[in-house]
């Protein structure tokens, strides 16, 4: 069993058959040209082998039509590869809005995963089948890469930013998870398993986990770090009110605007002076080193949970753009830079 020879990985996600179909096309073109070139070389080599050392040479002519034909036809074939590949890539890179989100933190040499419901896993990911799963990923140290061959998905996990990856698993089963970006000594041990489960099994698995969601953990962390001293829910604090923040458009002190997504919130926690909200002063200290990447994503989930329930359906984030951060609220003096 361990040494059986397989030629293709399993097709365990919705995108897997599409990638394989593209691979068949590429393979067909490759085999055609390989046979053509090998065949021609072999045939010519034998047909025109030297029979006498003084054979009279053949006249030579270059055919312009031939040169154009063998440039343009292959180019046309490659444009199909380009377009087809791009179409799949766009699907792979654009998660649907209703995807179930899981946070992934890579570090030398393990995967740490957190589910919204509060479950935390190491080197294992349990997911329901037939449901889009979106991974929101970052790294604590070097670049890693979250690769599930049977799903045909792969994405680098980069320190200092969030990258996403999504898929819909189609078959219950246990699938390899590999780190595909070289990350140091135990790179080849940074592996694990993705367990795709029927929805019922997944619900059972969830029920066996800890009580308290990721947002709850974030709320506890929010209290521990005393964030609420300044970020007051009624808008009277020295720092912006966070209610309804996620997904809204924030006006900055320098006149720019920014969409309050995960990356913005992460940056505001770890590097607060980078983007100062209009009407506020750069008072906040950095929390770099005080809060881990896992803590940051818990805080993000907590901040998301502060949105009115309507907005949490994620259908229409613009509805929540009741700007909680009008300039010069709270009677603060204008930012001095």
């Amino acid at each position, binding site marked *: 069993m361990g040494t059986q020879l397989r030629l293709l990985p399993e097709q365990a996600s919705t995108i897997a058959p599409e990638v394989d179909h593209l691979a068949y096309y590429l393979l067909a073109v490759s085999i055609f040209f390989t046979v053509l070139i090998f065949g021609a070389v072999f045939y010519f080599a034998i047909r025109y082998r030297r029979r006498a050392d003084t054979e009279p040479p053949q006249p*030579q002519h270059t055919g312009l039509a031939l040169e154009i034909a063998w440039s343009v036809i292959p180019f046309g074939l490659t444009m199909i*590869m*380009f377009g087809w590949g791009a179409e799949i890539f766009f699907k792979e890179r654009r998660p649907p809005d209703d995807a179930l989100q899981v946070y992934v933190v890579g570090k030398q040499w393990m995967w740490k995963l957190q589910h919204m419901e509060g479950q935390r896993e190491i080197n294992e990911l349990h997911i329901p089948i037939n449901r889009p799963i979106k991974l929101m990923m970052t790294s604590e140290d070097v670049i890693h890469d979250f690769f599930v061959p049977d799903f045909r998905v792969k994405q680098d996990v980069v320190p200092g930013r969030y990258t996403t990856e999504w898929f819909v698993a189609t078959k219950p089963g246990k699938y390899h998870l590999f780190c595909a970006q070289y990350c140091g000594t135990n790179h080849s041990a940074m592996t694990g398993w993705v367990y795709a489960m029927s929805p019922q099994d997944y619900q059972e698995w969830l029920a066996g986990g800890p009580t308290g969601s990721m947002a709850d953990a974030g709320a506890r962390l929010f209290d521990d770090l005393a964030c609420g001293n300044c970020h007051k829910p009624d808008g009277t604090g020295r720092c912006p009110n966070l209610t309804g923040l996620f997904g809204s458009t924030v006006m900055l002190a320098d006149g720019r605007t920014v969409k309050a997504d995960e990356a913005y919130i992460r940056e505001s926690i770890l590097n607060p002076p980078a983007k100062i909200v209009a009407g506020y002063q750069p008072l906040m200290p950095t929390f770099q080193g005080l809060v881990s990447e896992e803590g940051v994503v818990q805080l993000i989930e907590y901040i998301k949970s502060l949105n009115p329930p309507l907005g949490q359906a994620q259908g229409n984030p613009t509805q929540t753009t009741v700007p909680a951060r009008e300039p010069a609220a709270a009677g603060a003096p204008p930012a001095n830079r």
Partner: protein
Amino acid sequence: METAAVLERETYLNASYGLKSWLLTKDHKRIAVLYFITVSIFFAIGGAFAGLIRLELLTPQADLVSAETYNKLFTMHGVIMVFFFLIPSIPATLGNFFLPMMIGARDLAFPRINLLSWYLLIGGGAFAIFAMVSGGVDTGWTFYTPFSTSYSNSYVIATALGIFIAGFSSILTGLNFVVTVHRMRAPGMTWFRMPLFVWAHYATSLIQILGTPVIAVTLLLVLCERSFHIGIFDPALGGDPILFEHLFWFYSHPAVYIMVLPGMGVINEIVSTYSRKPIYGYVFVAFSSMAIAVVGFLVWGHHLFVSGQSLYAGLVFSFLSYFVAIPSAVKVFNWTATLYKGSISFDTPMLYAFGFIGLFTIGGLTGLFVASLGMDVHVHDTYFVIAHFHYVMVGGTIMAYLGGVHYWWPKMTGRMYPEDFAKLSALLVFVGFNLTFFPQFILGYLGMPRRYHVYPPEFQVLHVLSTAGATVLALGYILPAIYFLWSLRYGKVAGSNPWRATGLEWDTPSPPPTHNFDRIPVVTHGAYDYSHIPGEEIEVG
């Protein structure tokens, strides 16, 4: 007596004696020989690392070396093979020796700089070897940050300095070639009469001059961050790791063409000589080299499809990557068409050329897989990529290099190699190569990631095949090393033109005199004019 005549004649080999006469030589042919010895040693070292890697991968568990050692092995295999073997291999040996001769020049434009560039390679190599014997380096030849700047506990600085120094060798060689081609062509040697080998080297030189400074700067930035904690690439210091990937591949993708274009140049000479025909579509082949050099600078982002670079950047880089595929395809088609109605002989260099055409075709076609966005996401950083670039670098460049060394060996040494053993070596290399690397395409598509010391047991069968192939491949490489050395003393004495080839380098005795030609030739026709077959021997007094 022919033998006596050759031995008494003054050649570049017996013009002066002693170590000093070699180490201070300004003769491009002697410098080429120095390079040949140097890169052969680097090839042996890099090959030994590869052998250990294949041996370790025979079983899924760790049994031969530790994880740390394994990581150092593949890093040093990559560093040595890319920077100290493949990049200098053909240009600095065969190019150095034959580019001036092919255009009817007595030397390169700057003989002293030519010697300097060899010393720079030696200096860079010394740093790299120092890093290896002191404990090695484990970043991968790609030096991705922040691993290389903030996390690796190995000899990153020494290795990077070695590559930095060797880079200047590459730049100076390129500069020398460009000036030589512009300024030192013999009377009548117009641009479109030049052998395609020279065109290929001209295109390569442009990449070396324009691309290499970027890797030099990038490595300096790595040193700044690693030594002085200046935040450039590490996000913990305020840097951006994707920036490194862009800078690194801005050089390292064109570097692929530094490695393969000269090989394509060699194939032109061999295919023409052994089919006694001009290269079909000469102008198209010449311009395809230039097109590869230019477009090759615009495709580096296809190494970043899964890095987190923007979707639209990925789109542009995928599109442009297909543009660079076409000139390569044009070359393959034209070589094949050259065989049509030729007078084809199966001497060893031609066997290597056939091997090149086949393996480069497979390497190029699998490049179409990895240039396709949706496809690359799956095979990126797997063994599929390893197989792809080994088909281009080993199946392409090294096949061409060995073919070229066999082709010009009689000219360089004045001796013939034993033909039967040489044919056997060509066969062993071809079979061994395919057995080593073809299974890796399947491994990669199955999902086996690169740079894995241990792996799941279901991949073992294919790894065993690959290791078995590597054994055959090693024999194919060791065999020429033995019979080339043997031929220096016992080989049949070669005439000035044993293949009855056109080309000015065959128009002077073997081995050539120090100044290449007794009289500077006047060129009256294009390269590869086989309207009459050149005589085999030219008696020289």
